[in-house]
Structure formats: C-alpha cells, structure tokens
C-alpha cells in the first residue's frame, strides 16, 4: 500500500465525478430532518443507511478515518473538498451528527483497536447509527452530576438509570454513555464511559413529546442492562477526561472533519417565514413600527454572524471561553427574533392551517417554543456564569459538591443514591 496522499484537487475531481453520477438532489428532509410522521421518518432512515452504504462502496466514506477501520486516511482538506462538491446533493443527514461526530470521533480518540474495528467500519457502511447518552433528567447543566450507575459484576457491568434529550434514539443502534462507577469520590473522578447496545435487554426508549407536538427527542431507561467489560471505554473512573473531549467534539458539530455534509447548507431545524413576508400577510408591511421590527430582526441576524466571526478569531488566538459569549448572544437574539416574528404576525399568529405549517412553520408555535434557543446545548444561565467567572474573573458560585464524595452531595429529597 502506498503512503502517498492523493492531492486534494485530484481527489476533488474524482469526488465530483462520483457524486454527479451517483447522488441525486438534496431532499427537503435532509435540510430539516423533519418528517411528516414516523412512517416517513423510518423510510428516510432506511434511505440514509443505504446512501451511507453507497458512499462507502464508492470509497468516499470516512474521509478522515484511518484506513484500517475502513476510512480513507485523508486530511480535513480532503473532507472539505468533498463537502464542497456535495453541495446541492442528497446525503445521509442522519449520520452526520451525532453518529460521525461526536460518537465516531470519540470512539476513534479513546477506544481500543478491537472496539474501533467492531464499530467504525459498521458506521461507515451505514449499519450502525449512534447516539450520545449524556444528559439526565436530574440535571441538565450539571453534566458531571450524573446518577446513572454502572456496577461491576464479574466480566460485566450492570447499568441502571436514565438519560434524556437524546435526539432520534428510537431508531438508533448504539450509544456512548457516561455512567457513575464510584460514589465514594468527588463527582468528576467517579465516572466511566461505556458503549451500549440500544437493543440490549433492559433498554427502554420513550419519546418525549414537546409542547409543539414534535417528538424527535427521547428518554432512555436502563434497568439492569448488562454491558460486557470489553465495551468499557478507557480506564475505570476516568470517564470525565473522555467526557470533556467528547463535549469538545460535540461543540464542533458539523464542523468536525469526520462529518460529511454539503457545504453552504443552512443547518436549520426550522423553515421560518421571513419577517417581510409575515408583515405582508398581516397587512403591517407599511406600518413604521413594524418596519422597525423587521429592521431589528435583520440587524440581529447580521450581528450574530459578525460576533461569531469575532469569537472564532478569538478562539484561535487565546480564549476558548469566549464561545460562551457567542452562545449567550445567539440565545438571546434568537428569542428576540421569535418575538418580533410573533409581533409582526398580529392576531394571525393564533391560528394556521396544515399547508402553512408545512410551508413555513407556524409563527405562534415558534413563539411558544422560543426559549429552546436559550436552553438547548447548555442554558444561557450557564453561559452567563462562564462569562462572568472565566472571562471577567469574578468569584465562582458556591457549590455543594466540590471535594465531597459524590454519595454525600445533596441531591434533593427525592433523589435515590446508588
């Protein structure tokens, strides 16, 4: 086997030819991942698995994954070139995040050769869809405060507890999970990472219905689920080290070199109507006050992008915590933009028909869901703490869990302990 790496431009031309010959145009559900119902979603999932297999068979899967695990062993530049060529084409959107990142990227970084061989080729072939099992019902922002427990039993571990807010876990195959393995040490040093088969006995996956009726997120209940020790990742009780890298990968999202997706595609879970169009429908387009709202909506979009650029610059130079400013701003700006759209729609926001909803979402429902932008991916309250404490150097909040064995950390009256 030759060690010479194919020049990026040659790779690009080869990719372009293959993509044009084998992949159709981008589908609506590639953009939003929203499906009409579960039946349609399962069709989309099957199509994504087949598409991933097609890319694997075409020798374009896992561009930055090592060759020994079925990848191409190429560079992020090659992946970027492929993504650019993929623009406008269909692609297996349900594999991008979280399967390839953060799951596959974390497996690649921390798993043994045997574990990688067992899963990475399967992922590349479209046989395994992965989810990350991190958040718990007992604590969203306090990730290290998890209480899902894994207890050693011979060559196995017995898993009990629950994880939550897992996107689309109901049709996934495997999960990477953080569990508590030692309750007698402080919280950060008593956790271990495992790979868990979501079809194993004792795994119960429930859908969470959000107030807008949509139910992509799931809650998983684990009751005496047996995990072989060979599916443990890294050292026992050293899970937080892996967890921080895992969350780093998570923050990279679609920008990870392990993710294949068409460049320039607006990754949005919504298809919102523009404020201009909303105001036109409500008859407010010529009202000066409404004009100011339309302008403010536009202004916040422009500033969000400008700030992102500034923070990205800062991150490469010095301060990674600056991303908390970006997160805070985006959350608050998005809430304001939802409110503006709602305001512009007037009483029309109260009702809609199915066609409108399918075409542009419903302004009224988007407004009811607006706080999601300040909650998902870490709340804005946590961002404010990070900004105040790590950027401005203000004193840290008092915590009840520092240096205390996790067993003794107050968890509220109704919490059981392992």
């Amino acid at each position, binding site marked *: 086997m030759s060690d010479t790496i194919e020049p990026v431009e040659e790779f690009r031309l080869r990719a372009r030819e293959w993509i044009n010959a084998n992949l159709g145009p981008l589908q609506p559900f590639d953009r939003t991942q929203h499906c009409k119902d579960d039946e349609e979603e399962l069709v989309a999932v099957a199509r994504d698995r087949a598409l991933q297999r097609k890319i694997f068979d075409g020798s374009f899967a896992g561009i930055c994954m090592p060759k020994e695990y079925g990848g191409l062993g190429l560079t992020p530049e090659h992946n970027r070139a492929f993504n650019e060529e993929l623009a406008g084409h269909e692609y297996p959107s349900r594999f991008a995040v979280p399967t390839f990142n953060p799951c596959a990227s974390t497996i690649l970084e921390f798993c043994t050769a045997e574990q990688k061989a067992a899963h990475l080729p399967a992922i590349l072939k479209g046989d395994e869809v992965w989810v990350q099992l991190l958040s718990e019902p007992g604590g969203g922002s306090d990730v290290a405060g998890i209480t899902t427990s894994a207890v050693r039993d011979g060559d196995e571990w017995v898993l009990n507890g629950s994880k939550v807010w897992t996107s689309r876990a109901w049709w996934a195959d495997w999960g990477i999970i953080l569990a508590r393995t030692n309750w007698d040490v402080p919280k950060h040093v008593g956790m271990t990472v495992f790979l868990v088969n979501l079809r194993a006995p004792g795994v119960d996956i429930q859908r969470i219905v959000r107030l807008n009726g949509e139910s992509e997120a799931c809650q998983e209940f684990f009751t005496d689920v047996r995990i072989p020790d060979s599916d443990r990742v890294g050292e026992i009780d050293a899970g937080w080290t892996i967890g921080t890298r895992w969350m780093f990968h998570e923050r990279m999202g679609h920008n990870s070199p392990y993710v294949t997706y068409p460049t320039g595609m607006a990754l949005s879970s919504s298809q919102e109507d523009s404020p201009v169009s909303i105001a036109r429908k409500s008859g407010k387009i010529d009202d000066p006050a409404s004009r100011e709202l339309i*302008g403010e909506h*536009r202004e916040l979009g422009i500033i969000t992008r*400008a700030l992102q650029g*500034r*923070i990205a610059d800062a991150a490469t130079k010095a301060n990674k915590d600056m991303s908390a400013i970006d997160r805070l701003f985006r959350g608050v700006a998005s809430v304001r933009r939802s409110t503006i759209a709602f305001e512009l729609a007037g009483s029309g926001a109260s009702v809609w028909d199915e066609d409108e909803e399918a075409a542009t979402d419903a302004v009224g429902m988007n407004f009811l869901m607006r706080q999601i932008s300040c909650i998902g991916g870490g709340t804005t309250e946590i961002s404010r703490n990070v900004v105040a404490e790590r950027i401005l150097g203000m*004193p840290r909040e008092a915590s009840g869990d520092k240096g205390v064995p996790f067993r003794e950390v107050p968890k509220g009256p109704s919490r059981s302990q392992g």
Partner: protein
Amino acid sequence: MWHELSSDQQLLRDTTARFLTDRVPLDRQRKNKDSTEGFTPEYWSGGAELGWIMPLVSEENGGGSVSGRGIVDLSLIAYEFGRHAAPGPLVDCNVVASALSDSGEQTHAEALEAVMMGSAIASVCLGVAPWQTSDEATISITQDGDELVIEGSVKPVESAGQAAYFLITGYSQGGVTQVLVPAATQGITVKNLKAIDVSRKFGAVSFENVRVPASALVGAFGQADAAVERQVLNACVMLCAESVGAMESAFEMAVDWSFERYTFGRALASYQALKHRFADMKSWLEASHAICDSAADALADGLARAPETVSSAKAYIGENGVELAQDCVQIFGGIGVTYEHDLHFFLRRVTLNRLLYGTPGDHRRLLAQMQIEKEMAA
C-alpha cells in the same frame, strides 16, 4: 478592537490616546459644563496635526490614511475619542472633508485645507437624511437665476457656534443638493443650545433667504443623494466606533467597581444576580465591537453589504450602548448619577451618539426597506 493593526495604525491610535489623555482629561473637561465651546482652537489644530481629519481625503487633496483604508483608520481614532469622551467635531469635520475631497471642486480647496489643518471647523447641517422622505426635509435649496436660495432650519448642529463653514444638505425639486457656505453668510442665524454632552456643544442653525453663488455647490444640483448616503455611512461608523470606546470605558469602570465595592461582607462581583448582568453587558460589548469592525471593513472595501452592516451597527450600538451605560450607572448606585464621578461622561457620549445621524428606529426602517427590496428582487 480586534482588528489586526499594522504598526502604523497602532502608532496612530496610541499617539491619539496619549494626546487625549494629556490634553482633555476628564477632570479638565468637567469644568466645561457652562462653557459654550468645550475645547480650545489649539487642542483642535493639535489633533489635526496627528492626522485626525485626513483619512477620508484623497492624496491629491493632501489627505491619506496609514492603512489605505481610511474609514478603518478613522474608526481607531474615533474609538479613542470614545474611550476618553473627548471633545471636538471629529465626525462632522471628517464628513465635510470627505465631501469636499470627493466632489473634487477646486472652489472649495481653501476650505478643505483649513478643515484638514484644524484651523477651521466645518459643521454638517443635514436638512434631509436618507431615512427621511422629502416631506420631512427641514431645508430646501432652490435655484434662482445664478443663485441658490437656502431656506429652513436644522438642529442639532455640532459646534455650530464655532463653525467657519456649514455643509448644508437640503431638498431640491427631484433630489438632494449640498452646498458649502461660510458661517458668516447673510441670513444664517446660529443659536447655541444646551445639550447632552459636557464637551461636545450643539446649536440650531436657521437659513432665511440665504443666497449663495452656484460655486457653493458640492456635487451637482439635485444629485447629491448618493454622496449624502456615503457621508452618513462614514459618520455612522465613526459614531459607532466612538460609542464602542465609551462602552469599553464605562464597562471597565463598573467591573473594577464590582471587585472593590463590598456589601454584606462580599464583593459585588460575587453576587450571581450582578455577575449575570455583567455577562449580558459583556455580550453587548463584544457584539458591538464585532459589528462596528465589520461595518468599517465593509465600508472601506466598498462591499455591497456595507449599507445594511452600517445600519445594523448604528441601530444596535445606539440601543445597547445606552443600555450598557445605564446598567453601569445602576451597578454604581447613587454615585453613578453624580457630576463628580467619571461615569456620566461615557453615558452622555453613547446617548448623544445614539441620536446623531439616525436613531436606531431610523436605521431599522432603512434596514427593513433594504430587506423588502431584496426579497422583492428574489
């Protein structure tokens, strides 16, 4: 600011900062409360020598900027003006200098040179603005034989009482006209007014049957719309950069105070309720930096997105600059509203800048108009 500065740009910024620290410290400005001027002619010409009024003027006209991107260099100077709450019509003099330089009329060469040297002050009388309709114009300029006749009034006009020249923008049938006239021209009345800032003074200027020769024109009669729009964009970037500087100073003072001030046995900085307010303020400040830099870049490079980027900056910084400064007042408590404290200089500056060259509402309506046109074209 986060711009990668060249050593020349750094020098420009640092010499301005030193000059302002030395010449117009806040303790000295505090005494300006009852003066009608706010600064001395020596201060202004001294600043002009540092290149304050050159960046937007072409090299043929004796101007030039250290980076070749005039408005970016000017934003560095304006930022220091805000940082120090410095006096002087930096914005107007640069607007007039750029207007005269761009028009290329030799008749105004003498005025341009005097403004650049800081020996004369030129103020802007914006009688009709891009966010206004012709009905809302407060100055009209008409032709009468060989003469132009100026009627109307405008306020606020910066340094109106000290100005040697006025650049007047008025509405003419079918378009916008600009003229440069000596302040002493017959029919012009200046009334000094009380204003928000301690050191930047304003007045009202009225024009009653003011007759000037056609040589007073800056650009063609009735065809100055694009030139005025460009001048407003330049002015907005300067005002934004100045406000960001003022926000930075106010925020820095409040953060320092939060560590020094103890209450109930704890520093203010230890209260989560206040920490979260500081975090919000920090996000406004960083967003303001980001959009201000982006606006200066877009304008310097003549990008199509310049107008909406600049209007976004002016609207956002106008609103949040004031909110940040008022929040700082709240953090300081009673001392924050005393004349003896320095904070009010920055509160005044961001409040004033919010109102000049278009309020947040004016710029948001412009943004809406641009967006409506864009979506109609799509």
